[in-house]
């Protein structure tokens, strides 16, 4: 990159907010994935929307790629600067601008880390329902751009349901406000939602208006134990069908249970084929009633044992275990394909059976650990990129999982986005007319293709 451009960036954001050392470029070459690595030519930390605008105007004129980056925790290659250029790092725009207790909203800058927001608004007994499990590192800009969601989406839904408005800088430099601060808003096309899950390819989010909810006073955790993982899958929709909507339903399979028990023995049933963890929240009478009903329904549909957590501490143990599950998967293999396929809830048992079949067919380990409550199962294949034969079989198995999920009426990605990781499937599973609509929107907003180029489609 031309030295004169770097000098211009320096004059916009200040000297300390432009990094060019080879070490810094390397440190911004990766994200939460293992395989996608590319260095930017320069790292720029804006601190205001007008700085972002000034940087984008130059980039647009010079046709330099710009890749926005939040916490760099996404697992699809989304914030890797694939074609070099500017890594636009939003971590220094991390102010919580306002908390409006009357309207239950918060205004935040994009670099606010979710956990910082959670801790701050908890003081006002409020919470932001989308709960991606990367909350310690993920920023709201990244979460909006990936439309993140976590366990609690069974009851509360995902990020897009909690974004009232955003301020966004277009690739051509205009600063626009979309949406607003009201719950209802039908003024023309809903452009706001195009930016949610756009993976940083349409513009840079510089502010967001979030919808919050009051923290429910009581929570209860229930664990149901199964001898057959597919039966666990069935229980998920049986519980919902019976009129109870827990805020979370998570599934751990036998492999994960055993790894957790090795790491931190908390008394999970090691011989079980799977366990489901439910959490209900709300006012105490409702929660008590719902827990009973979950116990009843799960027993009726194949749970061999149901445990209700004694107290918050006991409950925390189960959720710690769920969290450790992720580390367990990653800690056990050189390369992990963490799939993000999502199927309609009624098809969970079919997807699980499909995974079992494929594990046999290709002789690979396929682990199921995921947000069962929303059909987002995260089947993971453990392999090693250096073991060619095993790796090739794993790739085949992964392809078939995705095809299988789509056949079942599901989608390729529930929450991680396409980025680089899922590109090879994107065209296959997306209607060409739809792809063309997306490309049309992209070229309208970003005529020079500078925003996070190389992502979503080839």
């Amino acid at each position, binding site marked *: 990159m031309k030295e004169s451009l770097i000098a211009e960036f320096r004059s916009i954001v200040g000297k300390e907010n432009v990094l060019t050392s080879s070490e810094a470029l390397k440190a911004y070459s990766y994200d939460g994935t293992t395989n996608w690595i590319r260095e930017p030519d320069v790292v720029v930390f804006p601190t205001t929307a007008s700085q972002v605008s000034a940087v984008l105007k130059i980039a647009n004129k010079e046709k330099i790629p710009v890749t926005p980056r939040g916490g*760099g925790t996404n697992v699809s290659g989304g914030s890797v600067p694939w074609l070099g250029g500017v890594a636009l790092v939003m971590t220094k725009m991390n102010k919580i601008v306002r908390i409006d207790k009357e309207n239950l909203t918060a205004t935040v800058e994009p670099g606010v880390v979710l956990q910082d927001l959670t801790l701050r608004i908890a003081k006002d007994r409020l919470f932001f329902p989308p709960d991606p499990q990367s909350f310690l*590192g993920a920023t709201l800009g990244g979460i909006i751009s990936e439309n993140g969601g976590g366990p609690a989406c069974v009851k509360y839904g995902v990020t897009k349901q909690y974004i009232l408005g955003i301020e966004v800088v277009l690739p051509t430099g205009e600063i626009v406000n979309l949406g607003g601060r009201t719950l209802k808003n039908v003024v023309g096309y809903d452009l706001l939602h195009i930016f949610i899950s756009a993976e940083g390819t349409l513009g840079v989010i510089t502010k967001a208006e979030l919808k919050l909810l009051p923290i429910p006073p009581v929570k209860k955790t229930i664990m149901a134990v199964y001898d057959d993982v597919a039966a666990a899958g069935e229980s998920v929709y049986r519980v919902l069908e019976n009129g109870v909507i827990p805020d979370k339903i998570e599934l751990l399979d036998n492999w994960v249970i055993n790894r957790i028990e090795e790491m931190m023995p908390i008394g999970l049933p090691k011989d079980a084929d799977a366990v489901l963890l439910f959490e209900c929240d709300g006012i105490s009478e409702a929660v008590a009633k719902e827990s009973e009903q979950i116990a009843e329904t799960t027993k009726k549909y194949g749970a061999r044992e149901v445990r209700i957590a004694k107290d918050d501490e006991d409950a925390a143990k189960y959720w710690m275990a769920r969290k450790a599950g992720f*580390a367990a998967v990653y800690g056990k293999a050189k390369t992990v394909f963490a799939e993000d396929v999502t199927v309609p809830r009624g098809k969970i048992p079919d997807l699980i059976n499909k995974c079992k079949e494929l594990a046999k067919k290709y002789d690979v380990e396929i682990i199921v650990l995921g947000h069962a409550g929303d059909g987002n199962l995260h089947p993971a294949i453990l392999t090693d990129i250096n073991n060619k034969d095993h790796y090739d079989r794993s790739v085949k198995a992964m392809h078939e999982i995705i095809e299988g999920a789509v056949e079942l009426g599901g989608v390729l990605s529930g929450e991680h986005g396409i980025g680089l990781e899922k590109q090879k499937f994107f065209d296959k599973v997306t209607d060409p007319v739809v792809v063309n609509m997306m490309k049309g929107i992209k070229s309208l907003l970003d005529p020079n293709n500078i925003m996070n180029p190389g992502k979503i489609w080839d």
Partner: protein
Amino acid sequence: MKDLSELKKVEQYADQCMKCGFCSFFCPVYQEERIETGVARGKNYLAKLIIKGEQEFTPEMGEILGKCLLCKRCVANCPSKTQIDRVVVAARAQMVKEKGLGFIKGFVFRRAMANRKAMGRYARLMQTFQWLLPKTEGKVRHLPDFIKSLGGRNFPALARTFLREQVKTVYPAVGPRKMTVAFFMGCATDFVYPELGLSLISFLTRRGVEVRVPKEQNCCGAAILFSGDFATARFLADENVKALKDVDYVVTACGTCSSTLKDYKKYLAGNEDEEKRYGELESRVKDATEFIIDVLKVKPEELTLKKEFEGKTATWHDPCHLIRYQNIKEQPRAILKGLKGLTYAEMPNADLCCGMGGSFSVYHYDITKKIAAKKMEGIKATGADIVVTACPGCMINLLDNVLLNKMPQKVYHLLELVE
């Protein structure tokens, strides 16, 4: 072939990182700068590139490796338990091997500290000129230099007489002897807080412990070891192993010293003989806090609070070298909660590093102050009158920042509270 032996030893730890980025939430340095090279994930990634031959020990790399408090907050909260502290220390050691000692700035005392006499002389010099300096409060004065290097901060006065000039070699147990321990002084206790050493000795002898103070003991070598100068650190380790023989336990009032003495094996052992000798020492080292509760089994309620602390509220600061290096968390709290006449108030961020990080604060005093400011918020929130800890290193930094923030709290070592 490039020598990568030190890094190779820790490659397995570096490989554990799955790049989740969770450490960013806990790393005090990242929290201030919000730059990836400052966080465990970034340092670890760059260290791995060095192993692969894709990154050199450039001055910038030296900076990055230097900007780590070794506070282990990242390790304690890492889902895959990546031991970034070991990776950073090994990378520093590799760098020292390749580039020589001069390359890493920030270790002013390396030479002086390895030679206890020289260190003493240097400190003595400082003391001699102390009267020239403006007196700020009580025992605190501004020293230029220990001076410049410490950034013109508030620094406790050096003792008139160092501890080792006052101690005898053996203090017999009062009453029947239960056991014999060696008292390990540590530099800060020796030069700055000699009374602390004397009160520990008296505390122990009154409880049936014979205390020996081997004259040949040296600096624990923390600053040297963590700077990556393993050769000098090994020299100190060997000296201390020799000096601290033939006792049941080795006890110290400094959290950093106890943790360093326990970690010689982990960081420095290069052969079986060293593994054996360092491991043997490790098994006998006890921090004073754990020694009192776990070995002597003193009941906290039976301890007597010094008069001057009657009716006061105390809060506890967890030194990194106690809570995360040695897993000592409950023992000091038990003592504080048990002391009659004292009220205990837990601060919200008790386990947050104070920002000192040994020589880190010499070169990054601005960051140190910002980290400490967060600590100060925690202290203020408790409404405590006194801040108690058990590491003289933390004491020095807490004291400086309490003054900088114009707070009324005084800083004490836990042992200073008890008769």
